């Protein structure tokens, strides 16, 4: 099997990583970079727990090869806060009580952040549509959507 040396930026830091061909971006982030905030829920692109930003766009990282990411800018949940200051969406989720077990939370935060970046004042239906690929089993989604609305207001 082939190995590839890739250069990429992760959460604002330049990295160089050697990855096997079959390593997904999700595994690279979790294993090679020890950024375990991104979660593995299904490895099939269905649950959204592995969502990260690639060049500003949310993607299911279990469905992307690390080798494809040479030159890319990646943001994971660990990259949302800066210098101890939480991102408004993170604060809003805590305040809204939208976190229960927390496993879907990183993916939800990334998808929400990306939504607010492209649509700073989304309607409820737009929020629902944007987060439809993030499965949550605990919260029933109501508070998650409330927190996106609250973060939009900040």
């Amino acid at each position, binding site marked *: 099997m082939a190995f590839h040396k890739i250069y990429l930026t992760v959460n604002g830091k330049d990295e160089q990583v050697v990855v*096997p061909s*079959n390593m997904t971006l999700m595994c690279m982030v979790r294993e090679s970079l020890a950024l375990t905030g991104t979660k593995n829920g299904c490895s099939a*692109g269905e649950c*959204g727990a592995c969502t990260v930003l690639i060049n500003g766009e949310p993607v299911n990282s*279990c469905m992307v*090869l690390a*080798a494809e990411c040479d030159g890319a800018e990646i943001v994971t949940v660990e990259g949302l806060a800066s210098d101890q200051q939480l991102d408004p969406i993170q604060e809003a989720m805590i305040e809204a009580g939208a976190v229960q077990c927390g496993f879907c939370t990183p993916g939800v935060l990334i998808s929400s952040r990306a939504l607010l970046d492209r649509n700073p004042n989304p309607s409820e239906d737009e929020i629902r549509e944007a987060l*439809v*690929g993030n499965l949550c089993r605990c919260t029933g989604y109501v508070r998650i959507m409330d927190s996106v609305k609250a973060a939009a207001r900040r």
Partner: protein
Amino acid sequence: MAINAHPTLPEFDYLRPETLIEASDFLVRHAPDARPFLGGTDVFVRMRDGLLTPKFLVDVKRLPGMNDLHFDPLSGLIIGAAVNMNRVIASQEVQEHYPMLAEACRSVASYPLRNRATIVGNICNASPAGDTLGASLAFEGVLHIHGSDGMRRESLVNFFLGPGKTRLKAGDIAVALHLPPPPAGSKGTYLKLGRNKLSDLSIVGVTALAHPDSAAPSGYRFRLVLASVAPVPFVANEAEDYLANTPITSDSIRAAARLAAEACAPIDDVRGSVRYRKQMVKNLSTRALSEVWEKLKK
């Protein structure tokens, strides 16, 4: 979805050739162990299940032409194979000239998945449930393919041979989808029935497109393509002919929908039964055709 599905991805070699010739060449030389891929959302899943076992995955996303997305009023729309569905949805030109295609893309999975999913990939995967296949067919799409003997064009009309089977052969790389300019006054809609409100595969998908046509006895020409009711995207020829030849009323629309329901050939599977699918073809075709008719009348 096998009980012993691979935890992540099985071993293979990833490569990214610089030119189309290099890519086609490699694919031919290593057939059947080499496969091109775009977004990977279908390929990776099937590899985990052991249904595909390529030794080489060839990344064709950065090859020339793959990322083009442009419209010309005379020649129509070119969608490069690597253009993801979100880009298509966001394109002003698609929204203006091929809104039904954007509608179809929007119904696929989720926003993050659409950042990887491509229309050409959807076409080459050739699942009868593919949401963008109906619009691509209705808009008379033509695939631009680079193979071991250079570039060629293939109309989508006879492109799909069965579930997961197309006319592509070893060495072929689909480079772009070309949609000619739609006839003046075209109106269309895509209706999709899933189990959830959004984000499911289609149990039934209805693509309806029509335009005024003085050559047709009814004054209009309709296209009606159905997803998930046959081994390939199902063109409801009888319904289309009927609507070309019969004055368009709510009754004739219902009759056309019935024709489509009778003609299609769904199977019982874990998502739906034959009986339900045929009923839904009838109901959703009626609704889709009515919506298009309303748009046409305005």
